[in-house]
C-alpha cells in the first residue's frame, strides 16, 4: 500500500504521521518503504492508522504481541507533546475569541481548568505509567504498581470537550461571527475525536500489551 493512499482514505491521519516523524510528499513510496527509511515498525504504524480510520477496528492478540512497546510509548509521548504545545492552546484561543461577548471570564475559567486537567493527565502517564512500563521491559518487576491500577484511574479527558461543544452549539449568541464560530467548532470536534482515539490506543493496545508482559514475568 502506498503512503499517499492512507491519507487519501482518511485525512485525519495527517495528524498521526508527524508523530511518527513521517511527512507527506513522498510520491509513490509504499508504507513499507517509508517506514524502513525512518526505522519505524510497519506493524505499529499500520495499527495506529487502522485504529484512527476504522471505528470498531478489532485488534488481534497476535498483532499486539508483535509490536514494540517502547515505540508505542514514543508515539504516545509525541502525541502528548503535540496536544499540549499546539492543538489544545489553539482550540482554547479559538474558544476565547468567540466567547468575548458572553461569559468570557467563565469560559476562560472553563478552559483553564481543562488545561490543568489535561496537563495532570499526561503528566501522570509520562511520569508514572511510562517509566513503570520501561522498567518492566528491562525485566524488573515493580511491586507497588500494576497496569490494573492505571486502568481503574484512567480518566476521560474528552468529556469536558463534549460539554463545551454542546454549550457553544446551543447557547452561544448568534451575534458572534459565524465563520469564526464554525472554525472553532470544527477544530474542537477534531481534537475531541483525536483524543478519543488516543485514549482507545492506551486502553486497548497499551493496557493489553502490558498486562501480557506482567503475566509472563
Amino acid at each position, binding site marked *: 500500500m502506498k503512503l499517499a493512499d492512507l491519507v487519501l482514505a482518511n485525512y485525519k491521519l495527517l495528524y498521526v504521521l508527524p508523530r511518527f516523524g513521517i511527512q507527506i510528499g513522498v510520491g509513490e513510496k509504499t508504507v513499507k518503504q517509508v517506514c524502513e527509511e525512518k526505522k519505524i515498525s510497519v506493524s505499529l504504524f499500520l495499527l495506529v492508522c487502522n485504529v484512527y480510520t476504522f471505528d470498531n477496528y478489532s485488534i488481534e492478540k497476535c498483532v499486539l504481541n508483535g509490536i514494540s512497546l517502547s515505540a508505542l510509548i514514543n508515539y504516545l509521548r509525541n502525541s502528548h507533546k503535540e496536544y499540549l504545545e499546539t492543538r489544545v492552546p489553539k482550540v482554547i484561543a479559538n474558544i476565547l475569541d468567540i466567547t468575548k461577548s458572553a461569559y468570557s471570564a467563565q469560559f476562560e475559567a472553563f478552559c483553564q481548568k481543562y488545561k490543568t486537567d489535561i496537563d495532570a493527565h499526561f503528566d501522570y502517564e509520562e511520569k508514572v505509567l511510562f517509566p513503570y512500563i520501561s522498567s518492566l521491559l528491562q525485566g524488573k518487576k515493580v511491586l507497588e504498581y500494576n497496569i490494573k491500577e492505571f486502568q481503574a484511574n484512567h480518566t476521560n479527558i474528552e468529556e469536558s470537550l463534549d*460539554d463545551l461543544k454542546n454549550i457553544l452549539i446551543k447557547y452561544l449568541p448568534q451575534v458572534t461571527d459565524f465563520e469564526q464560530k464554525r472554525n472553532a467548532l470544527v477544530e474542537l470536534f477534531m481534537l475531541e475525536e483525536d483524543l478519543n482515539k488516543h485514549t482507545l490506543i492506551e486502553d486497548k493496545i497499551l493496557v493489553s500489551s502490558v498486562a501480557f508482559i506482567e503475566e509472563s514475568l
Partner: protein
Amino acid sequence: MTENAKRHTIVIIEPSQIIESGICKLLENTEFDIIRSFTDYQSFNKDYFKGISPDMILINPTLLQPHKQFLIRSFFPDFAETIFVSLLYSYVAPETIYGFDGNITIYDTRVALLKKLRNLILPGSKHFNDKNSGNTKLSQREKEILIAVVKGLTNKEIAETQNISIHTVISHRKNVTRKTGIKTISGLLMYALFNNLISVEDMR
C-alpha cells in the same frame, strides 16, 4: 472477534417465556446484550429505569393497544434514540408494524436474526428525522438541584437541604445530564448561566 467490537443493549418485551429464552439463546456470544426482559408493556413502564436508553427494544406488538400500534414511539416518549423492532409470530397487516424500525419473526434463523439486527444498528440505517426528542425541559426540582451542584454542594448536602434521599439526588442529576446532554460540573455551570438559572454574582 466480538471482544473489541461495540456492544449493543437490548430490552425484550414479550409475554412468552419460551420465545424470550429462545431469543436470548440465539444472541448468546454476540455483540448484543439483553439487559432486561418484561412480559408486558405495563411492567416495563413501571420498572424500567428511564435514564438509560437501550439501543433496541424488541416488542411483541400485540401487547400494545389494538389499532394504536402504529404510534409505537408514542408509547415510549423517553426513548427517542432507541431502535424499535417488532417481534412477530405470524403474518400481520402492514399497518400493525408501521412506525417500527424493523421486524423479526419467530421463524427467523439465527443467521437471519443477526443479519436483521446488525443492519438496523448500522449508522447508515439511521437518518435524521422530525420525531420529537422526548421531554428535555428541566423540572423545578431538577433546576434546584442543578443550581446546588454548580454552587459546589455535595450530593449529601443537597439531600439534606432539599430534604430528599441521596439516591433521589443522584437520580435527579442523571435526569439533568440526560436532558441537557452535559456531564461535567463545569459544563453544567455554563448551562446554568446561559439559561439564567444563576447569575455571575451568585458565583462569588
